[in-house]
């Protein structure tokens, strides 16, 4: 027996050594799959995100590793250990994926909140802008309305003024109709004939005052109006005398109006003698017509007197 063993050892020393080594190592060293599972597990444990975000899956991975270790300790069944190590590796991978999922979900949640914030801000900004726009439009509308109202008031005022002017014009015509004045291109002409004056005198007869009071009244009501008083005579008497008499008569009329409160600035009084006869001086009646004082209420824009 010894001889046979010795001879076998001598013949195949390396083969024997390898067989012995494999027997010893099979007993003491852990299988490769378990070794890798341990390393994977250690790597997982070093990543704080995994235990934080996937605590259950991490626990399951640790349990799987523990079962693998126990199997190795108790039974040394390499096939079962390899199988359990595979399960451990997959549990570690599941933990890692679960943690990544959790991280992504947390990130998505934060991003959604951020998006909500940005949306809200932009909506608020839009609302503010819309509000400002609405306000400025309201202001514009108000302004436009005020302008329209002002224009309407102006129009009304203009109409009122036009109406007043028309009324005044109509009034004027009525008044002058009463005075038996006639409209000429110089303005309204009112003729006071010599019956209002004493013969060869410049004093006004009492009958003249009624007509002149009306004229004064009209001038008070129309302070913008100017008048011209022109005295005329017939051709009896010297030219110079007639001119002087006609001037005095015109002045009498002016004085009466000034006494009635009309400013002398508005009155021009002139004696034109026997010029511009309105009728023939050959007859008594014609001469009477020529002895006269004309009051011309000058047109607003008209020339005020015969030159």
């Amino acid at each position: 027996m010894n001889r046979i063993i010795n001879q076998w050892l001598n013949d195949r020393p390396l083969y024997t050594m390898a067989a012995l080594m494999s027997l010893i190592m099979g007993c003491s060293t852990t299988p490769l799959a378990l070794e890798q599972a341990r390393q994977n597990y250690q790597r997982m444990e070093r990543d704080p995100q995994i235990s934080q975000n996937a605590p259950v899956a991490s626990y399951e991975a640790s349990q799987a590793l523990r079962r693998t270790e126990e199997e190795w300790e108790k039974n040394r069944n390499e096939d079962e250990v390899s199988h359990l190590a595979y399960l451990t590796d997959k549990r570690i991978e599941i933990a890692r994926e679960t943690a990544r999922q959790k991280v992504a979900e947390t990130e998505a949640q934060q991003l959604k909140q951020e998006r909500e914030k940005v949306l809200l801000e932009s909506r608020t900004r839009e609302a503010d802008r819309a509000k400002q726009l609405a306000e400025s439009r309201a202001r514009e509308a108000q302004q436009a309305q005020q302008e329209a109202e002002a224009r309407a008031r102006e129009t009304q005022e203009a109409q009122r003024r036009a109406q007043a002017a028309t009324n005044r014009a109509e009034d004027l015509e009525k008044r002058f109709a009463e005075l038996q004045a006639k409209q000429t291109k110089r303005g309204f002409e009112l003729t006071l004939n010599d019956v209002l004056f004493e013969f060869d005198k410049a004093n006004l007869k009492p009958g003249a005052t009624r007509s002149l009071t009306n004229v004064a009244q009209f001038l008070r009501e129309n302070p913008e109006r100017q008048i011209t008083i022109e005295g005329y005579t017939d051709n009896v008497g010297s030219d110079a005398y007639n001119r002087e008499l006609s001037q005095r008569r015109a002045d009498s009329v002016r004085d009466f109006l000034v006494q009635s409160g009309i400013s002398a600035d508005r009155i021009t009084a002139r004696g034109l003698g026997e010029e511009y006869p309105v009728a023939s001086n050959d007859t008594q009646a014609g001469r009477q017509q020529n002895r006269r004082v004309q009051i011309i209420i000058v047109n607003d824009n008209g020339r005020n007197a015969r030159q």
Partner: protein
Amino acid sequence: MYQKQFLSFRVAVPIVLTILSITGCSTIGPPKDSVAAADLAVREANKSKAPQYSPLELRRATDKLDEAKRAMDKEEYIRARRLAEEALVDAQLAEAKAASEDARRTASDVRQSLETLRREAQRSSGGD
């Protein structure tokens, strides 16, 4: 004499071991629970986003489950149990990977829409 004894010893040991292993197998019984759990896990994974995002892992799980069922039929119960257990973790991994990918895509979409929104907000506030 020596020779005969030695030979009988060499033959006897494997026989005893074989008998032991066979009895060991037969005492385990069919791993019905493991196969049922794996079956459920594979079906769950199929209902998740796994077919879309992790088809390879899902395929591996399905194949192992099928093989586990075949091993059951052949009464290879240890193999059947191991295959079923592996099919279960493979299916769960497929599901976890798909869910994780889905979450990352969602986050990416939200990030993109947020950036677009920010750009628009900046443009509109900068432009006016």
